[in-house]
């Protein structure tokens, strides 16, 4: 069977037939319809209650603490993580071993356990004194007053972010071509300047996506602080439902806020990735 060239040239180009797509689309839409149906018809979701508490001052107060705690621990932890990564790559033998030990310890102990340890620091060291190590002391204070729940939460999450981000940063730095730091050295640039201006910016495209994950993970980890009575978003809704027993609607309030925050962070990540992709000629992934 042969066709004429003219017929072949005039023919319309058609995509291959994919019957499986119709099936998968049908199944997916059916599941979505079921979800929508139960969300709307199951009265126990209590959407009215969700709406009433969504912007209540108790919930917004908890939300503020969650946002503040995430931002502060992420900023402090990431800076500390860069320092730890720098020490692990270029530090002397003793600091390098110490940095390795820090990362090993923090990564080995569950976050919740660390949180409880810092919170209970007062029972481990009831008094904290300032002075020469093994020598005279200039003054001392009670740790019970020093370590509030908020501070324990801040310290724990900061150290956690530092340990994980140091690994992210170290990996990113190792991905930068050695020729870059050699070129910088040959131009008489110092080690710190080379790190800050030449190597780190080029490591950022590898660092940003993983840090975005870490940031989202940290945002959600802040909910752990509810166990030490820090009034974050989760503990705020718990306080409400402990009083009026509207457990599910208030958990939905918290869930919606976590989803909103994560979405905003993902959008921010897209723009940060785009910024660090300049000069690389590569396209960043879509949202």
């Amino acid at each position, binding site marked *: 069977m042969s066709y004429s060239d003219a017929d072949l040239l005039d023919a319309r180009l058609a995509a291959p037939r994919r019957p499986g797509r119709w099936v998968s689309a049908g199944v997916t839409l059916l599941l979505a319809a079921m979800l929508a149906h139960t969300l709307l018809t199951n009265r126990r979701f209590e959407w009215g209650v969700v709406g009433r508490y969504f912007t209540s001052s108790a919930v917004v107060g908890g939300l503020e603490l969650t946002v503040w705690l995430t931002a502060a621990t992420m900023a402090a932890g990431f800076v500390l993580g860069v320092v730890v990564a720098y020490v692990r790559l270029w530090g002397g033998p003793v600091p390098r071993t110490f940095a390795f030990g820090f990362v090993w310890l923090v990564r080995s102990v569950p976050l919740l356990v660390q949180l409880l340890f810092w919170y209970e620091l007062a029972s481990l060291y009831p008094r904290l004194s300032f002075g020469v190590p093994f020598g005279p002391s200039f003054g001392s204070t009670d740790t019970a007053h020093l370590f509030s729940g908020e501070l324990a939460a801040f310290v724990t999450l900061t150290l956690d972010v530092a340990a994980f981000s140091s690994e992210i940063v170290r990996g990113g730095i190792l991905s930068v071509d050695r*020729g870059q730091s050699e*070129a910088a050295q040959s131009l008489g*640039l110092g080690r710190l300047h080379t790190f800050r201006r030449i190597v780190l910016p080029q490591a950022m495209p590898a660092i940003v996506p993983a840090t975005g994950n870490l940031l989202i993970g940290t945002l959600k980890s802040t909910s752990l602080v509810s166990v030490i009575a820090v009034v974050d978003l989760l503990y705020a809704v718990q306080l409400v439902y402990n009083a009026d027993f509207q457990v599910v609607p208030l958990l939905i309030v918290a869930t919606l806020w976590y989803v909103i925050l994560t979405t905003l962070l993902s959008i921010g990540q897209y723009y940060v990735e785009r910024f660090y992709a300049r000069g690389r000629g590569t396209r960043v992934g879509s949202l």
Partner: protein
Amino acid sequence: MSEPVKTGETLLRIRGLRKSFGSHTVLHGVDLDVPRGGVTVILGPSGSGKSTLLRCINHLEKPDAGFVELGGEIIGYRPVGDAQGEVKRLQELPSRELTRQRARIGMVFQQFNLFPHLTVLENLVEAPVALRRATRKEAAATARELLGRVGLAGREDAYPRQLSGGQQQRVAIARALALSPDLLLFDEPTSALDPELVGEVLRVVRDLALSGMSMIVVTHEIGFAREVADTVVFVDGGRVLESGPPDVVLNGAAHERTRAFLEAVL
């Protein structure tokens, strides 16, 4: 082994330079003199130690023995003497001092190694400003002038990625010149280039030679060596087999090994 050639004032002296990587010895005691204002071309087969020799000059590699002296100053080390005035040891310099020495020696790499996240102008301005040699404005003016010299006026705002290999290498040369170094090192500057781009880079290097810049060029371009070099040094197996004016080394090589290499590449 032939005596190092001397023409005019000696800028760079290398004596007894040895370097091993693990059990593999790359340099077996290299002696070399480079005159001020001269062009020294280093030839030799791959793996002969040419690049390592070049990288020892600005201390990107630390030699195991021997020393490199630029304008009377030992690179990377400070000689420490005893009361009798005898040198007891060579103390490695703190990084600040080393940084100052490296700024006197420009280097151009085979893979260009431009900073890809900075524009062409920023690539040239970074070091002079960081070393407090100039304000950003002065450095930018110098950079524009240098870019004109390498035929890239008007490309200040391009990112390296947007330039051809030949253009990138010319930017790299301009970047090395921005600190007005005493000596310029070229590590196979045209080996990573498409053949039709080699000429534009060699032209820039030749112009620099004519302007009296002191240079050491590791290359496989024999024609360039013949035309531009004041001294040709042939390195094989981590040793300087011979050195001399190009017509002597390239036409009447004393060593069988040199003749075999030249026959193979020509």
